[in-house]
């Protein structure tokens, strides 16, 4: 076991599973980068229920629900009020979301490609869609499976396009409803623009808030994206361009004229993806995620250069971070987010330890994670979950973790070899005083609780 192998699993991965540090130790950087050579894992249902639905099928279901609602409303009489289709529909959707997230957690617990999975989590927290939005809840699982996972080692602009055109994003940031005021549909309906997607695309997804755009640019991009919506017929992807809603004529975005229906939107997104401000914005965010809360400027500069030189090649970007000397500096790392924290514990314990009740166990971890203040694909705003140590080290947040660590220890079998597990999962990162405290514990449950509460386990 080498220190570098342990750091690779801890800082770039999701915390080591038994045996992982040995595997990584021979050639830690190669071990990390090899994970990007094949497609990333796709979550599979943990229960015996149906397979997860595609974005297109989910749009079909949404359209059908809207039709049912209209029909039920029309048929309702004073004595027989219509059943509340909204309630029924969303109950099903919440269950489906929960199934998707359980499968996602299980991938985190078990994956042999933890760096690839970290990248998935990073990009899903960059192109944010949130289940807190009732319109989007159905779609967030499909969004990650379809727009993020296939592209984490691909091109930034491909991920940007896939994300923007996914029904989840169209619904979450309201573009599905946005209509060009001077379009045919706009003139008939009197409906108009919605600026939400146009703004967040530039502020959060590409240029960054200081990347050089004005309110006029927000309106311009919103106009360019009119007509992009969800497909009334469901279709394969759930996305469709409706020319009758598209704002006609020349539209000036950041000094450049766009004209030409759907293609104008694609061109605008590609221009944004290739902008120097985007390279700067992404480089900084990536460095904060994988290197430090306050990354060295030269590390950020290297990432920025990589992004620019390769035209936004995300595999090259990941390699640049892995090869950065600052990434390997030992010392107190960043605080793990709650999802990272509970995932690391499950990996350490070698989940699943039983063949039964896996779904139930995952749901238990999910509930604990939610209580610690984070839940996947359910960020409070389009900015996503915070990625700074401050956000996760507050008093109440920390106490919740320690409470959970204690409960976790209580549930382990008496003969559990806590020290062996600690050595396998942290290797040289396990500190002497944590080891000593574990050794002097009354039982293995308490030893594990101390380990999971320790600074080296809270941080990565």
């Amino acid at each position: 076991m080498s220190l570098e192998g342990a750091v690779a699993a801890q800082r770039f991965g999701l915390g080591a599973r038994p045996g992982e540090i040995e595997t990584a130790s021979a050639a830690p950087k190669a071990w990390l980068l090899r994970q990007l050579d094949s497609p990333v894992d796709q979550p599979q249902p943990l229960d015996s229920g149906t397979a997860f639905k595609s974005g297109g099928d989910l749009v079909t279901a949404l359209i059908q629900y809207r039709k049912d609602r209209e029909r039920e409303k029309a048929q309702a009489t004073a004595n027989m009020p219509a059943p509340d289709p909204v309630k029924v529909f969303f109950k099903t959707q919440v269950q489906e979301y929960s199934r998707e997230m359980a499968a996602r957690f299980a991938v985190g617990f078990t994956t042999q490609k933890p760096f690839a999975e970290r990248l998935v989590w990073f990009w899903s927290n960059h192109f944010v869609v949130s289940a807190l939005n009732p319109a989007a809840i159905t779609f967030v699982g499909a969004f990650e499976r379809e727009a993020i996972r296939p592209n984490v080692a691909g091109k930034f602009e491909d991920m940007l396009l896939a994300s923007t055109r996914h029904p989840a994003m169209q619904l979450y940031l309201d573009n599905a409803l946005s209509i060009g005021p001077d379009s045919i549909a706009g003139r008939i309906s009197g409906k108009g623009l919605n600026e939400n997607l146009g703004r967040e695309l530039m502020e959060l997804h590409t240029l960054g808030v200081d990347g050089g755009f004005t309110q006029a640019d927000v309106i311009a991009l919103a106009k360019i994206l009119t007509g992009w919506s969800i497909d009334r017929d469901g279709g394969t992807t759930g996305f469709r361009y409706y020319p009758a809603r598209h704002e006609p004529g020349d539209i000036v975005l950041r000094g450049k004229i766009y004209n030409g229906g759907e293609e104008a939107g694609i061109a605008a997104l590609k221009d944004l993806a290739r902008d120097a401000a985007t390279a700067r914005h992404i480089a900084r965010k990536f460095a904060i995620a994988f290197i430090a809360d306050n990354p060295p400027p030269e590390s950020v500069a290297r990432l920025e250069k990589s992004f620019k030189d390769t035209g936004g090649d995300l595999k090259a970007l990941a390699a640049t971070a892995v090869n950065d000397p600052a990434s390997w500096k030992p010392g107190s790392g960043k605080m793990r987010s709650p999802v990272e924290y509970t995932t690391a514990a499950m990996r350490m314990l070698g989940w699943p330890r039983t063949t039964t009740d896996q779904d139930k166990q995952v749901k238990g971890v999910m509930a604990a994670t939610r209580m610690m203040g984070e839940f996947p694909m359910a960020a409070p705003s389009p900015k996503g979950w915070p990625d700074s140590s401050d956000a996760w080290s507050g008093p109440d947040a920390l106490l919740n973790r320690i409470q959970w660590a204690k409960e976790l220890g209580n549930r382990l079998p008496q003969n559990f070899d806590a020290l062996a597990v600690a050595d396998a999962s942290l290797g040289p990162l396990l500190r002497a005083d944590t080891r000593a405290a574990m050794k002097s514990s009354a039982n293995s449950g308490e030893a594990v609780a101390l380990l999971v509460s320790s600074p080296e386990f809270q941080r990565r």
Partner: protein
Amino acid sequence: MFNRRSILKTAFAASAMSVWDAPVRFAFANVPTDRRFVVVILRGALDGLAAVPPHGDPDYKSVRGILALDTTGTMPLHDLDGHFGLHPALINMKTMWDQKELVVFQNISSPYRDRSHFDGQNVLETGGTGPHVLGDGWLNRALVPMGLSTGDGALAIAASPPLMLSGPARVSSWMPSVMPQPDAAFLKRVRALYADDPILRASLDSAIHTETEADAAMDDKPKTPEQMAQRMGSYGDLTPLFTGAGKLLARDDGPRIAVLDASGWDTHVNEGAGDGQLARRLRALDAGLDAMKTALGPVWKKTAVVMATEFGRTAAPNGNGGTDHGTAGAAFLLGGAVEGGVVKADWTGLKPSALKDGRDQPPQTDMRALFKGVLSDHMRVARRDLDGTVFPDSGSVAPSGVLFTA
């Protein structure tokens, strides 16, 4: 009311305290103030013209269109002074108005002039002149002149303190929890592991202290997930958090400052007028305030609550029955210590020429004036501190002349 459970809890609280020998635990014995100050951050940009409709303005109905509120009918707005009103959902706030415990601000805004939620919240919370100019929160900096910076005089009702309360001065955070607190001996062992991690150690000390206090304050603390679910109410219910804040603030040895978050104001689509999406959220907020007032009991008389948002929204509806990001909006100051019953608005009308960029409420009053007014007149922070450390570069912004009874 003593039952077995509460006795056990008290016993536990005592033992939890005994393992900590830090004297700071008893710092509240000589807290420098008995006044309470609460900030509710309304994240997401509250529509000021929906919360505080200027129904007397000649252009109100035409500009607001489908979002205009009625003065009569089944969902009438609450008239305040013939010109401004409160949204129909704000029933308890109307009662506070009638009891002269509410000051309403209109056309108020932080110095931020763009339309990003996140930069807007950064300016609102740091008290800087622009986004990311300052790295910590104005309320944290204000703890020093208030004499509350060494103990747990300030509390965030959140897992981790929001930026407004973050900074060098020590603060705590608290949320209702389902899981049982580990025994004191175990926590002491964990604390020993944090010897070389000052951030985690300070955080844990603070948590233990607040949790012990909360255990004593919450006489009916839920113990099972079922009880918890019942306590949390339905999704979006703010009363558990506001009640918790009120109970902790009500204690003699409790915090004097609290910050709460209430999000869900980003109404781009189907905002609704008298009823609908925004009305439901306002109803939840209004219920939360009433719950906090109840929990505070007699301490309500010593309390001032400020509710502020990062910016307002467009005056007119957008294409989807919602509103987009704007500039100025509404803010509120309320509490038993407030001498209220007034609207503070430098009102310039709703004609396009009066609106910023022809679309937003114009920023006529600086939000820092409101914050400074409360800090100055209620919390007795000197002007030189307000203009110096708390709100740097704000010398030209005079504290708003809000009045307090106590």
